[in-house]
């Protein structure tokens, strides 16, 4: 590690990159919560039928692999074919602002999803009580509803933060010369200057340590956080609750969603369609030129996703059960819970570096094995968390009833718990799968094998000469396949229970 401290330019680059990572993650998470909450509010509270459409659309950036999102945003904001054409030249050139826009767009659905769930669970009676006691809607929201929803607000903030700090592939695409932690690591890794490993370890360690510290701080201080303003201004707040202001807020919410999230995210559809009409698709289907590598990487990505999902389901179920039912004692469950969360909050590329350094000592570990390991450790929190939460929601009396009727523990698990938590299991599996297919950082860190997102990053960065139509089509195929797989999964598990 010596040479990083001996090289002032390298160390200042590293510090700047680390600082950029956290500054962007915190900033993006805050504006994401501010923008996502009104959307969730609109989805749950408004009576219009159009809102189920909004609800579905809000999920889009979640399903689309992040590299695709990155390329889509790059096209939309920076390329002459995007919105910039209206302004002559590039509206937002690659750099930190584009990274902020990108992270905002892909964290947005997470916030909306979490907050919609929280708002649906929220007892409206508290709000009604506040209103009957004389509080205007705005007053009731800020003094009663928001404080009660605080845990979910904090959770969604942390999720957005974790996604922002981890994302690598799409960030590389839109960063230009700008560097944050993951970009710095990936550049160093690709350049392979002599002795670069020390710098890698240093930056990875700092990223992991600060992430964990922030996570711990939020966990400890979050519950003590109070809403800042106690005083109430009845007349002003009543005016701010008026229907005019509400309409204005809803309009602004929809505008932000359309302009900053939905349209930029779907912009990649245009070159993809054009590629279909001008014949690029034929070359692609025949696997000519760069397309041969594309199909190989696509196969690698999906095979990897499938293996990771399968293994995670099998390993994750018992862990989730232990956490949810506290069979090993509450303290053990709490420790397990924190351990499970760590891979989620640290940058995946840093985790990958850490894994690859660990496994370097074991010569027998093949590269593909390392890749599977990396993806497993990054994705298992998603499965375990959603599954543990689902098992916790199953009334323990169902389990007890089955036991009194003569069911052995495993039979009870198989016949009662599993059927009741099937949807969460599928949801967890879908999250693992999409996360694995999207993952770039850890892949770059542990292997030279090219998964689809890694390949697309190379295409965009010009390492392989590819036209924008080809990249667009490459992204389009990835999106379509993701959709098809999701659809099949949903159809397979259809039914009332």
């Amino acid at each position, binding site marked *: 590690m010596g040479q990083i401290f001996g090289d002032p330019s390298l160390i200042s680059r590293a510090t700047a990159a680390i600082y950029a990572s956290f500054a962007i993650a915190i900033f993006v998470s805050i504006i994401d919560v501010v923008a996502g909450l009104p959307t969730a509010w609109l989805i749950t509270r408004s009576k219009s039928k159009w809102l189920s459409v909004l609800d579905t659309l809000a999920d889009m950036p979640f399903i689309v692999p992040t590299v695709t999102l990155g390329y889509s945003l790059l096209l939309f904001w920076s390329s002459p074919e995007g919105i910039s054409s209206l302004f002559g030249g590039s509206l937002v050139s690659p750099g930190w602002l584009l990274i902020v826009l990108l992270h905002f767009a892909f964290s947005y659905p997470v916030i909306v999803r979490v907050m919609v769930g929280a708002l649906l669970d929220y007892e409206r*009676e508290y709000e*009604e*009580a*506040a209103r*009957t006691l*004389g*509080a205007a*809607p705005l007053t009731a929201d800020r*003094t009663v509803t928001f404080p009660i929803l605080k845990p979910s607000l904090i959770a969604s903030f942390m999720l957005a933060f974790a996604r922002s700090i981890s994302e690598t592939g799409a960030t590389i695409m839109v960063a230009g010369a700008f560097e944050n932690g993951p970009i710095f690591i990936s550049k160093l890794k690709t350049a392979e200057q002599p002795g670069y490993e020390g710098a890698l370890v240093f930056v990875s360690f700092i990223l992991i340590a600060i992430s964990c510290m922030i996570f711990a701080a939020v966990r400890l201080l979050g519950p003590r956080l109070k809403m800042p303003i106690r005083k109430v201004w009845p007349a002003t707040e009543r005016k701010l609750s008026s229907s005019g202001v509400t309409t204005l807020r809803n309009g602004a919410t929809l505008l932000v969603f359309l302009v900053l999230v939905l349209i930029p995210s779907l912009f990649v559809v245009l070159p993809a369609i054009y590629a279909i009409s001008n014949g690029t698709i034929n070359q692609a289907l025949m696997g000519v030129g760069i397309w041969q590598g594309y199909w190989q990487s696509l196969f690698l990505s999906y095979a990897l996703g499938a293996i990771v999902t399968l293994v995670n389901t099998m390993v994750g179920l018992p862990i989730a059960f232990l956490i949810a039912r506290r069979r090993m004692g509450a303290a053990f469950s709490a420790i397990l819970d924190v351990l499970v969360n760590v891979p989620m909050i640290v940058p995946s590329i840093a985790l990958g570096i850490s894994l690859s350094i660990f496994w370097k000592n074991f010569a027998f570990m093949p590269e593909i094995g390392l890749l599977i390991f990396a993806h497993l450790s990054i994705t298992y929190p998603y499965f375990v968390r959603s599954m543990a939460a689902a098992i916790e929601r199953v009334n323990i009396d169902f389990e007890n009833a089955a036991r009194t009727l003569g069911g052995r523990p495993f039979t009870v698990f198989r016949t009662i718990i599993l059927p009741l938590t099937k949807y969460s299991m599928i949801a967890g599996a879908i999250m693992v799968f999409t996360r694995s297919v999207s993952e770039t950082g850890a892949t770059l860190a542990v292997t030279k094998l090219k998964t689809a997102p890694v390949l697309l990053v190379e295409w965009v960065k010009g390492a392989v000469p590819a036209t924008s139509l080809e990249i667009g089509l490459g992204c389009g195929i990835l999106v379509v396949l993701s959709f098809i797989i999701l659809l099949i999964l949903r159809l397979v598990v259809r039914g009332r229970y």
Partner: protein
Amino acid sequence: MPEVRLVNVSKKFDKIVAVDNVSLQVHDGEYFSLLGPSGCGKTTLLRMIAGLVQPDEGEIYIENRLVNPFPPENRDIGFVFQQYALFPHMNVWDNVTYGPRVKAWEDKERERIGREMLEMVRLYERLDSLPSELSGGMMQRVGLARALAAGAKLLLLDEPLGALDAKIRLELRYELRRFAKDLKLTAIHVTHDQGEAMVISDRIAVMRKGKILQVGTPQELYMKPKHVFVANFVGESNFLEGHVLKVNKKESFIGLRGGLSVRTLDTAHGKSEKVVVAIRPELLIVKKGRERKVDSLFGQVERLRFEGANIRYEIRLENEEPITVIRPALTTKWLDVGEKVTIGFPADKCLVFIYPEKGLRAELALE
């Protein structure tokens, strides 16, 4: 003290009519109950008065002011919820002084009223507790103090005792009435418990399927129900189906099934009309043996149930119809199962209703 007036108020949820063209007047300072089985629309009616639900049609006046356009915060009401709805993130003190706080009252006034209300419900020493640290009865007392501290003169209570244990429920019901009377409030209390409504209310409106069937004092509802449903829901009644055999200026004779007949003082129904005779079980007299007299029926004791203060006999009449008789358990001699008995049927105490169009069973159904 406010008076509440509803004029032709209706509310539908999708296709279900929750409240159907209801008009009602609650007087100043009155303790008024809306009584009915679950799903009868009483809670919806209360929530419309509070402004938590908007009526589809009709007008709501509080203190002669049309309040339809006003949101709940501008209606000057206090609302008490069945599940308390105490803000879980605030302690008792912050809950109780929430109303004064959001109305931006002066600190001194807020302190004064918070203290006064908490002392009234005897929870001043618990002002630092969180709602989760209180028992159900305490929580509802805080809920009440909170509603009153906002300075409202109209108190709306939605099944306020519904979630409490039986004993606490009995205690708290008298307190509710006492607080309302001491503070000279108008109170509208929603409940499905007729016993509760009877003992706390000045007047009661009995509701079923979105409509008000009868409004009256507890005594009126009990003594002179105008509807078979009310006769059954308020208190308890035996119902005997029959038709008018003979009617004159003073009395009528009703023929029951199996050739039995009873005399009543009802003269409102014409000869041959199909009717229902209702009689309260506690008004029937039962004696061992068979003794043919005027106004008597024969039967046999099928079952008896000791209820503490009373004993309840289920008797099968000669025509195989069941009838219930309730007698004091401690001051009368008990009858045995299988015993043949004579039931004294007081002609002046039974009520005669026209037979309902949809049948008796449908008319008495709670849902």
